[in-house]
Protein backbone atom coordinates (compact mmCIF):
# COMPACT_ATOMS: atom_id res chain seq x y z
CA UNK A 1 0.00 0.00 0.00
CA UNK A 2 1.55 3.33 -1.01
CA UNK A 3 2.46 5.72 1.78
CA UNK A 4 1.18 9.27 1.38
CA UNK A 5 4.07 11.67 2.10
CA UNK A 6 3.79 13.90 5.14
CA UNK A 7 4.35 16.83 2.79
CA UNK A 8 1.05 15.97 1.11
CA UNK A 9 -0.99 15.26 4.24
CA UNK A 10 0.30 18.32 6.09
CA UNK A 11 0.72 20.95 3.40
CA UNK A 12 0.01 23.92 5.68
CA UNK A 13 2.90 23.05 7.99
CA UNK A 14 5.20 22.51 5.02
CA UNK A 15 4.20 25.89 3.57
CA UNK A 16 4.95 27.54 6.91
CA UNK A 17 8.38 25.92 7.09
CA UNK A 18 9.20 27.11 3.57
CA UNK A 19 7.98 30.63 4.30
CA UNK A 20 10.26 30.74 7.33
CA UNK A 21 13.26 29.69 5.24
CA UNK A 22 12.34 32.27 2.60
CA UNK A 23 12.58 34.97 5.29
CA UNK A 24 15.90 33.60 6.57
CA UNK A 25 17.43 33.76 3.10
CA UNK A 26 16.31 37.27 2.19
CA UNK A 27 17.47 39.49 0.51
CA UNK A 28 19.46 37.08 -1.70
CA UNK A 29 16.34 34.97 -2.11
CA UNK A 30 13.39 37.01 -3.36
CA UNK A 31 10.86 34.18 -3.16
CA UNK A 32 10.51 30.40 -3.16
CA UNK A 33 7.83 28.64 -5.17
CA UNK A 34 7.36 24.89 -5.20
CA UNK A 35 5.32 22.06 -6.59
CA UNK A 36 4.74 18.64 -5.06
CA UNK A 37 4.53 15.79 -7.52
CA UNK A 38 6.34 12.77 -8.92
CA UNK A 39 9.80 13.08 -10.39
CA UNK A 40 10.88 11.32 -13.61
CA UNK A 41 11.32 8.08 -11.63
CA UNK A 42 7.83 8.26 -10.14
CA UNK A 43 9.06 9.13 -6.63
CA UNK A 44 7.14 11.77 -4.71
CA UNK A 45 9.18 14.96 -4.85
CA UNK A 46 9.19 18.65 -4.06
CA UNK A 47 10.37 20.85 -6.91
CA UNK A 48 11.65 24.17 -5.56
CA UNK A 49 11.86 27.23 -7.83
CA UNK A 50 14.06 29.76 -6.07
CA UNK A 51 14.13 33.30 -7.37
CA UNK A 52 17.38 35.11 -6.56
CA UNK A 53 18.08 38.82 -6.56
CA UNK A 54 20.19 39.98 -9.48
CA UNK A 55 22.99 40.82 -7.04
CA UNK A 56 22.99 37.26 -5.67
CA UNK A 57 22.98 35.84 -9.22
CA UNK A 58 26.19 37.55 -10.31
CA UNK A 59 28.85 35.02 -11.35
CA UNK A 60 31.16 35.78 -8.43
CA UNK A 61 28.38 35.18 -5.87
CA UNK A 62 26.19 32.54 -7.51
CA UNK A 63 27.99 29.41 -6.26
CA UNK A 64 28.27 30.69 -2.69
CA UNK A 65 24.62 31.75 -2.58
CA UNK A 66 23.18 28.57 -4.09
CA UNK A 67 25.31 26.37 -1.83
CA UNK A 68 24.05 28.28 1.22
CA UNK A 69 20.42 28.07 0.08
CA UNK A 70 20.76 24.31 -0.51
CA UNK A 71 22.24 23.79 2.95
CA UNK A 72 19.56 25.87 4.68
CA UNK A 73 16.76 24.02 2.86
CA UNK A 74 18.34 20.69 3.72
CA UNK A 75 18.83 21.57 7.40
CA UNK A 76 15.70 23.63 8.10
CA UNK A 77 13.13 21.84 5.94
CA UNK A 78 14.80 18.43 5.46
CA UNK A 79 12.35 17.47 2.70
CA UNK A 80 13.24 13.79 2.53
CA UNK A 81 13.25 12.88 6.22
CA UNK A 82 10.65 15.32 7.55
CA UNK A 83 8.22 15.35 4.61
CA UNK A 84 8.95 12.14 2.63
CA UNK A 85 9.68 14.19 -0.49
CA UNK A 86 12.77 14.04 -2.70
CA UNK A 87 14.03 17.64 -3.09
CA UNK A 88 14.96 19.23 -6.42
CA UNK A 89 16.18 22.83 -6.61
CA UNK A 90 16.29 25.27 -9.51
CA UNK A 91 17.49 28.88 -9.32
CA UNK A 92 16.68 31.84 -11.52
CA UNK A 93 17.50 35.56 -11.31
CA UNK A 94 14.91 38.32 -11.09
CA UNK A 95 15.86 39.80 -14.45
CA UNK A 96 15.68 36.39 -16.13
CA UNK A 97 12.19 35.85 -14.73
CA UNK A 98 11.21 39.35 -15.87
CA UNK A 99 12.16 38.32 -19.41
CA UNK A 100 10.71 34.80 -19.33
CA UNK A 101 7.53 35.77 -17.40
CA UNK A 102 6.74 32.24 -16.26
CA UNK A 103 3.67 32.05 -14.03
CA UNK A 104 5.13 29.15 -12.04
CA UNK A 105 7.95 31.41 -10.84
CA UNK A 106 5.81 34.50 -10.18
Amino acid at each position, binding site marked *: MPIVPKGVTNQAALAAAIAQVEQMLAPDVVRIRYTIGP*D*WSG*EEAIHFRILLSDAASRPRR*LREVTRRVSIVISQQIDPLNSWDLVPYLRFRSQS*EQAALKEAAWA
Partner: protein
Amino acid sequence: MAYPDDLLEQALHLARRESKRPRQTSLRRAISTAYYALFHLLIAEAVSNWRIPAQRPLLARIFQHKGMNDASGRAASSAFADADPRLVAHLRNVASAFKQLYQDRQTADYDNATEWSRTEVLTQIGLVQDAFASWRAIRNQAIANDYLLSLFVKDRQ
Protein backbone atom coordinates in the same frame (compact mmCIF):
# COMPACT_ATOMS: atom_id res chain seq x y z
CA MET B 1 37.32 6.10 -24.01
CA ALA B 2 36.27 8.22 -21.06
CA TYR B 3 35.98 11.98 -21.45
CA PRO B 4 34.10 13.39 -18.45
CA ASP B 5 36.29 16.48 -18.07
CA ASP B 6 35.82 17.37 -21.74
CA LEU B 7 32.06 16.98 -21.37
CA LEU B 8 32.04 19.28 -18.35
CA GLU B 9 34.03 21.90 -20.25
CA GLN B 10 31.63 21.59 -23.19
CA ALA B 11 28.63 22.03 -20.87
CA LEU B 12 30.10 25.32 -19.64
CA HIS B 13 30.82 26.40 -23.22
CA LEU B 14 27.19 25.78 -24.20
CA ALA B 15 25.84 27.54 -21.11
CA ARG B 16 27.88 30.68 -21.83
CA ARG B 17 27.03 30.96 -25.54
CA GLU B 18 24.77 33.78 -26.85
CA SER B 19 25.72 36.25 -24.14
CA LYS B 20 22.59 38.44 -24.42
CA ARG B 21 19.79 35.97 -25.13
CA PRO B 22 20.78 32.33 -24.71
CA ARG B 23 18.95 29.90 -26.96
CA GLN B 24 16.94 27.19 -25.24
CA THR B 25 18.72 24.58 -27.34
CA SER B 26 22.12 25.69 -25.97
CA LEU B 27 20.87 25.63 -22.38
CA ARG B 28 19.17 22.24 -22.78
CA ARG B 29 22.25 20.69 -24.35
CA ALA B 30 24.37 22.20 -21.55
CA ILE B 31 22.25 20.46 -18.90
CA SER B 32 22.30 17.17 -20.75
CA THR B 33 26.06 17.39 -21.29
CA ALA B 34 26.70 18.18 -17.61
CA TYR B 35 24.69 15.10 -16.65
CA TYR B 36 26.67 12.94 -19.04
CA ALA B 37 29.93 14.31 -17.65
CA LEU B 38 29.04 12.91 -14.21
CA PHE B 39 27.52 9.73 -15.69
CA HIS B 40 30.72 8.93 -17.59
CA LEU B 41 33.00 9.93 -14.70
CA LEU B 42 31.34 7.36 -12.44
CA ILE B 43 31.29 4.64 -15.07
CA ALA B 44 34.94 5.24 -15.97
CA GLU B 45 35.88 5.01 -12.30
CA ALA B 46 33.87 1.82 -11.82
CA VAL B 47 35.25 -0.04 -14.82
CA SER B 48 38.81 1.08 -14.06
CA ASN B 49 38.67 -1.51 -11.28
CA TRP B 50 38.32 -4.26 -13.90
CA ARG B 51 41.71 -5.90 -14.43
CA ILE B 52 41.60 -6.27 -18.23
CA PRO B 53 41.66 -2.81 -19.91
CA ALA B 54 40.46 -4.05 -23.30
CA GLN B 55 37.21 -5.29 -21.74
CA ARG B 56 36.38 -2.05 -19.92
CA PRO B 57 34.43 -0.34 -22.76
CA LEU B 58 32.14 -3.37 -23.06
CA LEU B 59 31.71 -3.57 -19.29
CA ALA B 60 30.74 0.12 -19.27
CA ARG B 61 27.64 -0.74 -21.29
CA ILE B 62 25.99 -2.60 -18.39
CA PHE B 63 25.37 0.69 -16.54
CA GLN B 64 21.82 2.01 -16.79
CA HIS B 65 20.60 5.51 -16.04
CA LYS B 66 17.71 4.47 -13.84
CA GLY B 67 19.74 2.00 -11.80
CA MET B 68 22.40 4.63 -11.19
CA ASN B 69 19.76 7.16 -10.21
CA ASP B 70 18.12 4.74 -7.76
CA ALA B 71 21.49 3.89 -6.20
CA SER B 72 22.35 7.57 -5.92
CA GLY B 73 19.06 8.22 -4.13
CA ARG B 74 19.90 5.53 -1.60
CA ALA B 75 23.44 6.87 -1.10
CA ALA B 76 22.24 10.44 -0.70
CA SER B 77 19.87 9.47 2.11
CA SER B 78 21.84 6.71 3.89
CA ALA B 79 23.19 7.27 7.40
CA PHE B 80 26.64 5.56 6.98
CA ALA B 81 26.81 5.43 10.79
CA ASP B 82 30.38 4.11 11.08
CA ALA B 83 31.96 6.18 8.32
CA ASP B 84 34.05 9.35 8.54
CA PRO B 85 31.53 12.25 8.29
CA ARG B 86 33.82 14.16 5.89
CA LEU B 87 33.85 11.24 3.47
CA VAL B 88 30.09 10.83 3.81
CA ALA B 89 29.59 14.53 3.00
CA HIS B 90 31.64 14.13 -0.19
CA LEU B 91 29.75 11.01 -1.21
CA ARG B 92 26.43 12.75 -0.62
CA ASN B 93 27.62 15.64 -2.83
CA VAL B 94 28.24 13.19 -5.65
CA ALA B 95 25.07 11.14 -5.18
CA SER B 96 22.72 14.09 -4.75
CA ALA B 97 24.26 15.86 -7.76
CA PHE B 98 23.65 12.74 -9.84
CA LYS B 99 20.02 12.57 -8.71
CA GLN B 100 19.42 16.28 -9.40
CA LEU B 101 21.09 16.16 -12.82
CA TYR B 102 19.24 12.97 -13.80
CA GLN B 103 16.00 14.83 -13.16
CA ASP B 104 17.21 17.95 -14.98
CA ARG B 105 18.48 15.99 -17.96
CA GLN B 106 15.13 14.21 -18.36
CA THR B 107 13.39 17.58 -18.28
CA ALA B 108 15.88 19.23 -20.63
CA ASP B 109 15.70 16.40 -23.15
CA TYR B 110 12.01 15.48 -23.05
CA ASP B 111 9.91 18.35 -21.62
CA ASN B 112 9.63 21.10 -24.20
CA ALA B 113 7.25 23.09 -21.99
CA THR B 114 9.99 23.92 -19.48
CA GLU B 115 12.02 27.07 -20.11
CA TRP B 116 15.57 27.31 -18.81
CA SER B 117 17.56 30.35 -17.78
CA ARG B 118 21.34 30.70 -17.80
CA THR B 119 21.44 31.00 -14.00
CA GLU B 120 19.58 27.70 -13.62
CA VAL B 121 21.97 25.97 -15.98
CA LEU B 122 25.16 27.44 -14.50
CA THR B 123 23.97 26.42 -11.03
CA GLN B 124 23.44 22.81 -12.09
CA ILE B 125 26.82 22.72 -13.84
CA GLY B 126 28.30 24.04 -10.58
CA LEU B 127 26.79 21.02 -8.79
CA VAL B 128 28.61 18.73 -11.20
CA GLN B 129 31.88 20.64 -10.72
CA ASP B 130 31.49 20.22 -6.95
CA ALA B 131 30.67 16.53 -7.46
CA PHE B 132 33.87 16.07 -9.50
CA ALA B 133 35.90 17.68 -6.69
CA SER B 134 34.18 15.57 -4.04
CA TRP B 135 34.72 12.41 -6.05
CA ARG B 136 38.44 13.12 -6.36
CA ALA B 137 38.61 13.55 -2.59
CA ILE B 138 37.14 10.09 -1.89
CA ARG B 139 37.82 7.97 -4.98
CA ASN B 140 40.26 5.67 -3.17
CA GLN B 141 38.05 5.16 -0.13
CA ALA B 142 35.94 2.09 0.60
CA ILE B 143 32.78 4.17 0.81
CA ALA B 144 33.34 5.36 -2.79
CA ASN B 145 33.98 1.86 -4.10
CA ASP B 146 30.84 0.57 -2.39
CA TYR B 147 28.88 3.32 -4.14
CA LEU B 148 30.39 2.40 -7.52
CA LEU B 149 29.35 -1.21 -6.99
CA SER B 150 25.81 -0.14 -6.08
CA LEU B 151 25.52 1.71 -9.40
CA PHE B 152 25.23 -1.54 -11.34
CA VAL B 153 24.24 -4.18 -8.77
CA LYS B 154 20.50 -4.31 -8.19
CA ASP B 155 19.28 -3.56 -4.67
CA ARG B 156 17.35 -6.62 -3.48
CA GLN B 157 16.24 -5.30 -0.07
